[in-house]
């Protein structure tokens, strides 16, 4: 009979003609998840005709994953699995097949997540950066208003929160800041000393270290450490609070999250960063002092005498003036990213990373700006 398929068989199934002349797909063996690839190949090798019946006489057992592969093969052949006659099945496999055949209509393909092209991705990122910046400006305004409110009602300052934040951002940062700036002082003195020795200008190392460290290196390095330490901490703390709806709870109490959470952090960081920078100044000069004698034959007395001549106070002041400005922006970015984080844990992680990057970029941009301003002013 031409209507009937050529008999084909494999370890898993066989297509044959039953006594009444109908096409019959006979399943063989145990159909389970580990053999799915082989089962799919075996089914794919059969050209299943539209009016097929399925026989389970030789089937040992079947699980849902394998039953689904059969359903898929039937659908691909244009057969609705639900309407297929099941022949000679034991109760358990029959139930599995019936259950699985009820699921899902037609042979649908799984949708894939759309990927943007390079240009579209670039545009999307640009728009996002724009939104972030606009959001920062709004947040800056809100924070300024909260600070102004504080001028009129000083009683609203949360002293306790301020001290806690000062401890965490300032006092607890002392060891790491001291260590890093000490090492930086040593490294600058060493590198300058290598060059200065060639010209016999050993003593000028003191000028270099004194001015360089107090005016530029200490403020920048300390600000970067604080951005990584406290900026990230602000985002993580506020982000976690936002996840737990704690910020909403503050709002529903009629309190301003700006006043309760943001202002104490901003003020605490603006207080602690200049102090840390001063510590950084001292430590980096100490580092240079330490290495000056063994490497450059500059005794501590000579070093200090030269330092008094070379380092005018204005360089130190320039460094210390920059610190609160850095602090203001680090705190602003950190709290803003935390307050507006998406409501899932992954978003908190992303926002924290973003805070660190943004704060460091902000610090370096501000420093460049300061350099231009001070140069114009001739300071």
């Amino acid at each position, binding site marked *: 009979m031409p209507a009937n398929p050529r008999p084909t068989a494999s370890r898993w199934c066989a297509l044959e003609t039953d006594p009444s002349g109908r096409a019959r797909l006979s399943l063989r063996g145990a159909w*389970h*998840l*580990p053999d*799915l*690839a082989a089962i*799919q190949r075996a089914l794919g090798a059969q050209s299943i005709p539209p009016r097929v019946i399925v026989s389970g006489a030789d089937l040992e057992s079947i*699980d*849902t*994953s394998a039953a*689904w*592969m059969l359903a*898929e093969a039937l659908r691909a052949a244009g057969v609705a699995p639900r309407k297929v006659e099941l022949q000679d099945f034991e109760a*358990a496999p029959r*139930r*599995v097949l*019936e*259950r*699985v055949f009820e*699921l*899902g209509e037609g042979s*649908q*393909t*799984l*949708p*894939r*997540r*759309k990927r943007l092209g390079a240009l579209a991705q670039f545009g999307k990122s640009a728009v996002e950066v724009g939104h972030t910046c606009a959001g920062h400006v709004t947040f800056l305004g809100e924070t300024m208003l909260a600070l102004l409110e504080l001028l009129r009602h000083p009683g609203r300052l949360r002293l306790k929160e301020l001290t806690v934040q000062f401890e965490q951002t300032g006092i607890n940062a002392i060891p790491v800041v001291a260590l890093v700036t000490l090492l930086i002082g040593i490294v600058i003195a060493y590198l300058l000393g290598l060059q200065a020795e060639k010209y016999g200008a050993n003593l000028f190392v003191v000028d270099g270290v004194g001015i360089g460290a107090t005016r530029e290196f200490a403020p920048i390095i300390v600000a970067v450490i604080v951005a990584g330490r406290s900026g990230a901490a602000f985002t993580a703390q506020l982000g976690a609070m936002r996840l737990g709806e704690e910020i909403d709870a503050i709002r529903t109490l009629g309190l301003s999250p700006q006043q309760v959470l943001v202002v104490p952090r901003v003020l605490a960081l603006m207080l602690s960063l200049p102090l840390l920078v001063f510590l950084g100044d001292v430590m980096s000069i100490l580092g240079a002092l330490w290495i000056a004698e063994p490497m450059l034959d500059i005794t501590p007395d000579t070093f200090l005498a030269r330092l008094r001549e070379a380092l005018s106070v204005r360089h130190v002041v320039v460094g210390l003036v920059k610190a609160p400005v850095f602090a203001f922006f680090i705190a602003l970015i950190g709290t803003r990213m935390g307050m507006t984080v*998406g*409501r*899932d*844990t*992954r*978003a908190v992680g992303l926002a924290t990373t973003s805070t660190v990057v943004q704060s460091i970029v902000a610090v370096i941009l501000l420093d460049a700006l300061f350099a231009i301003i001070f140069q114009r002013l001739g300071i």
Partner: protein
Amino acid sequence: MGVIEVDNVVTRFGEQPVHAGVNFSISAGTLVALIGGSGSGKSVLLREMIGLLRPDAGTVRVLGTDMWGDTEEEVDAVRRQIGVLFQDGALWSSLTVAQNVAAPMREHQKLPPPVVRAQVRLRLAQAGLPLSAATKLPSELSGGMRKRAALARALALEPQILFLDEPTSGLDPITARAFDTMVRGLVDDLGITVFIVTHDLDTLLGAVDRVIVLAQGRVRADGPVREVMHVDDPWVRSYFAVRTMLEGGDDGG
């Protein structure tokens, strides 16, 4: 012998006793619920059963393997035969739903991608999720959808036993009942053993074969719901009191 055997499990957190010798055995193809007050150590017991937390004494056998005595390989082999639905889904947040469901298959089976994709479709359909959910990230799903997606992942490796930690908490009653029906179907049609930690009275009355009550560190009652309801224990009585009251009201009206 049951597929799960909990034998004299003792747990302490520091000085605080949690389990003072818990015993029960669960036979294949049943839907068993564990209930108990907050802090009675239900979730702790569940974590001990799936091999995440070591009990201070006693043994837990799952599919014949001692989860805390046998080798790591044997325990891993059991882990591939059980599915766990954590309370809030515990979907991996950086992967889409489809990738979450595919992950166990990718890790443990060498299946070609088209087969994996077909299997993901099956599991989504089994869990009652539309195909459009496949490309979403967990953060883009509602609570009920997240639980379904997590169930789809738990089913990915054809588990013999499913552990569900408060599967219907946070769901509306209609979604919760649909979830019960789905789980019941897994037990009846596929012969999967299901162990639920729950607080949901409707789940207990509508879908469960057997209830185990945990209180004061021990099993206080164990049996079909209708029997456990009438056990003479203060906690059990007040637990079911609301329901008895409501049902009494219905009869009167």
